[in-house]
């Protein structure tokens, strides 16, 4: 194994070494082969995971890397979703609708960033929370946005691929997600990503070395919202139907939970957090279905709790798992991954 680097570019290239390249290629191949041997149901789960990955990447950029909290990201996702639907209905091709959704949402991100520049901690939390709330309330009142009833999302034309619609959509979402991961990775390695982290660690020193705090905080808000907008666009497509209640405060909290669970400030963390939490949420939704354990739970509920409320166990467990992660692995799943890697590298010592 070669440990010494001979060229500074080795710190910039996408794959550290041949081994990493190999495993990435295997993963990619697997992802692309998947639609041919699993049921559509599993594809939709992966779609949901992928969409959450995109939001998490953006949110982590803002929270984990720039150190600004946001409790309103569901609002950005909503803006992205609604922009896409409006544009698709107007006959705009999907690729433009997607780009426009990202850009429009990014603009909203900058607009929210402006009053938030001086705010910290709970003050920023309230400002972003207010934004998320405002977005869904306003959408609920707008008739051309379908009001509270919501809107159907037009199908995009993917016939040229020669595949089934669900399969083509899966490829669209996966490709965009992979691009988002690479874009985030390059951004974070660059002068701009470094500036974000500098602001997080010491805004005073950051300004003293020439970083324009206003500009870079707005960049961070804008880029973070851009990702949420793209994710919203994709989410609308695969749901096929959107309404304001989808984008509630709970969704914003869910995104925050993803990045904390995965690991703040880490791309791997964003990806792992999104995958694991999405899976967990789906599993816990029908907790009674789990063999043996589900029966026992139902019996217990009938005796001590209520049988009708048994689905609420999922909230209880999610909360409990969240606390356990923060208590025992504050760097999240990414921290766990790092420790496992180090353990195997050193084994058997």
């Amino acid at each position, binding site marked *: 194994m070669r440990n010494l680097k001979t060229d500074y570019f080795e710190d910039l290239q996408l794959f550290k070494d041949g081994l990493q390249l190999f495993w990435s290629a295997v993963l990619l191949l697997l992802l692309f082969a998947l639609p041919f041997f699993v049921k559509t149901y599993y594809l939709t789960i992966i779609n949901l995971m992928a969409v959450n990955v995109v939001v998490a990447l953006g949110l982590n950029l803002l929270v984990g890397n720039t150190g600004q909290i946001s409790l309103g990201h569901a609002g950005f996702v909503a803006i992205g979703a609604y922009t896409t639907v409006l544009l698709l209905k107007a006959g705009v091709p999907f690729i433009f609708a997607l780009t426009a959704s990202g850009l429009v949402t990014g603009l909203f991100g900058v607009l929210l960033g402006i009053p938030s520049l001086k705010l910290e901690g*709970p003050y920023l939390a309230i400002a972003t929370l207010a934004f998320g709330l405002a977005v869904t309330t306003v959408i609920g009142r707008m008739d051309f946005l379908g009001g509270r009833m919501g809107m159907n999302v037009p199908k995009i034309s993917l016939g040229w691929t020669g595949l089934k619609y669900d399969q083509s959509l899966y490829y669209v979402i996966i490709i965009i997600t992979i691009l988002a991961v690479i874009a985030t990775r390059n951004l974070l390695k660059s002068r701009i990503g470094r500036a974000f982290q500098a602001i997080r660690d010491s805004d005073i020193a950051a300004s003293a070395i020439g970083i324009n705090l206003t500009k870079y905080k707005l960049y961070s808000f804008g880029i973070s919202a851009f990702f949420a907008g793209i994710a919203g666009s994709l989410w609308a497509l695969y749901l096929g139907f959107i309404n304001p209640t989808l984008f509630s405060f709970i969704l914003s909290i869910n995104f925050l939970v993803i990045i904390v669970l995965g690991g703040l400030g880490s791309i791997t963390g964003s990806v792992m957090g999104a995958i694991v939490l999405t899976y967990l949420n789906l599993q816990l939704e029908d907790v009674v279905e789990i063999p043996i354990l589900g029966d026992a739970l139902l019996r217990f509920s009938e005796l001590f709790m209520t049988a009708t*409320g048994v689905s609420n166990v999922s909230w209880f467990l999610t909360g409990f798992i969240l606390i356990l992660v923060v208590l025992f692995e504050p760097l999240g799943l990414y921290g766990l991954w790092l420790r496992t890697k180090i353990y195997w590298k050193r084994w058997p010592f």
Partner: protein
Amino acid sequence: MLGQLIVSSLVVGSIYALLALAMSITYKASEVPNFAQGEMAMISTFMAFVMLSSYGLPFYAAMLITVVFAFVLGLLLEFLFLRRAKMPTPLNLIVITIGFQLMLYGFAGWKWGSDQRQINLPFSESKVIFQNDIFALTELNLATLIIAVVVLVVIYLLIQRTKLGLAMKACQQNINASRMNGISANRIMAITFGISSVVGAMAGILVAPILTLDPSMMWDPLLKGFAAAVLGGMKSLHGVVIGGLLLGLVENLFGFYISIEFKSVVAFAIIVLILYFKPSGLFDKHYVRKV
């Protein structure tokens, strides 16, 4: 009409003020906005409901038990979870409170289902107890105002006049120096969470008759309470109370004269606007780090 509006604003505002105060007490001590505050109040309110309805206890006994229960709940949050955090950064602690919130929410839904219930307090929300040309006051309105004032006075005396209050202030200023001077900072922190939880529970019991008793009953009031605290300045105890009353006023006046649908949004918009000019709320000094 304006007179009546102002009175109802004060009533709603005093509930916001109680929740804001509850959040502020713990925020001052730990720099953590406690997102579980609302659910802690909700569970405590359910406790009061069970004592009153299922066990048929008299009101005062039920209240006493509820207060003790709320206090213990606050202690538990601090003792079981917050204190154990390996990396107690504000964000990590916030996530712990969110986790606790989800646990309590899930527990309540599990235990009591999603049926809507009615809590029976000895003061009715419809019976008018006082009326003149300008406004009318129901029993519940009056009780709300009285209880809010009593809680505020008790908290004020507790912090300003007791040894415990002095220790709480010392821990807020410098936790390590407090430890070195023989204050058990952990115990003080736990007690602070306990007190905050009791204040929140009072708010919960007072809103329960207006809303219906269900697991999500505190979501909206808590957001308003949090917003009120931010408006006043999270670390200023009198500030958050004024923030609560102001928020009640803005919301009600806007709701009546312009649009009831947008009243929450406008209330938040005004708060964001105020924060733009006063980034640490109306009554708290904006702290700039020294180098």
